């Protein structure tokens, strides 16, 4: 059951993105930024957490979930360490994903070459 919820919620979030892509001049880079910021805001006002509880990875895997983690981290940091925590909390909570992207990006660029499309 939780797999079905993850599939449907994750899929629907992507459909919203596709509709924006197809009906506006926005590029995928715009969508990434918009969805991430939306995730931070929804996470900040507490609206995203119920969705994470309901859909699990369906809510955390889309970039909205990345924004939610940033917001959660910043709020928790602020709770325990005040202003300094507000600065450090977001990146701390998402450090794994960011570090992985940097390290694996670096490794892949050494191992693989881009291939021409045809």
């Amino acid at each position, binding site marked *: 059951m939780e797999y079905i919820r993850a599939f449907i919620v994750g899929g629907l979030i992507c459909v919203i993105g596709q509709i924006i*892509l197809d009906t506006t*001049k926005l*590029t*995928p880079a715009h969508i990434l930024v918009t969805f991430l910021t939306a995730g931070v805001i929804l996470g900040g006002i507490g609206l995203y957490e119920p969705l994470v509880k309901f859909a699990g990875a369906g809510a955390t895997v889309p970039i909205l979930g990345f924004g939610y983690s940033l917001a959660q981290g910043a709020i928790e940091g602020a709770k325990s360490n005040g202003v300094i925590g507000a600065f450090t909390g977001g990146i701390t909570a998402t450090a794994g994903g960011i570090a992985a992207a940097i390290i694996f990006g670096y490794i892949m660029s050494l191992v693989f070459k*881009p*291939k*021409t*499309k*045809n």
Partner: protein
Amino acid sequence: MALKKLGSQTVKFHNPPSIISTYTIVGPKEGEGPLKDYFDFILEDDMWGQASFEKAEAKIQEETIKAAINNGNLTNQDIDFILSGDLLNQIVSSTYTARQLSIPYYGLYGACSTMTESLSLGAMIIDGGFADKVVCATSSHFSSAERQFRFPLEYGSQRNFSSQWTVTGAGATILSSTGDGPYITYATTGKIVDKGIKDASNMGAAMAPAAVDTLITHFKDTGFSPSDYDLIISGDLGKIGKSIVLDLLKKEGYDLSNNFTDCGVEIFDGEKQDTHAGGSGCACAAVVFNGYIYKEMKKGNLKRVLLMATGALHSTIINQQGESIPGIAHAITIDINKD
């Protein structure tokens, strides 16, 4: 006195320069397209053993020019000038080609209009008596253009239906003061026309107004009508640009529906090859002209052709600053007879 000037933007050559040799090299995708039998050399690998796409493009242009010179039974010393250009920043493919050839070089930037820009200027230099033999050339490469103007190759984005596919390849023409044709008899130099299109994935619409302007000017200056040509062919307007040109010329009273097409529409099979609106890039007009059109004229199947390469003079930087994309189109009349 501009003795050879005709009307507002056209020149008529008194001693029309002759095309004495051409050569074309294309990438693997172009080599699977409908015009594959007209190209001189089809690459199996578009990197051609080079370390980067830019270096590969330079090698393609260099080998194309060398082969065109060779085809004409000439040596580098016989050539007075190279007139060439490409899409890359600082036209590096052309510069690094010229570095290898030690022939006096004029670098041109006209984006995808370069083929007719170089042929117009080459013909003027020869008819003016400043040279006997001139090489006119240009190149483009899908992957070097993608990374400069769009996204990395491995980035997972969708191309919309108005987008075009940059042709990998190069074409070179050798013009001579003597020869038995086909000849360049007229050249109409285009003005920049910009109707405010900002969408970099709809180059056809950005260039079409310039194409319309040059065509109308050409007919007015020369007194020709569309039916005087066996073929009127634009460079890389693609399906959308082609349809706009047909519409707008009809409004102005010119019917091109029988003999007008576009190199970008002809070079790929849009359905099978998934190229959306068609081919683009400097090489699009260059390989279709130096391959298909030249060979058909040599056979006598085409007698008089109006070739009009079209350029979207697009810079990502000023485009991001909010500017629109200026278009240009230069037309030349190529005739198997001198007059």
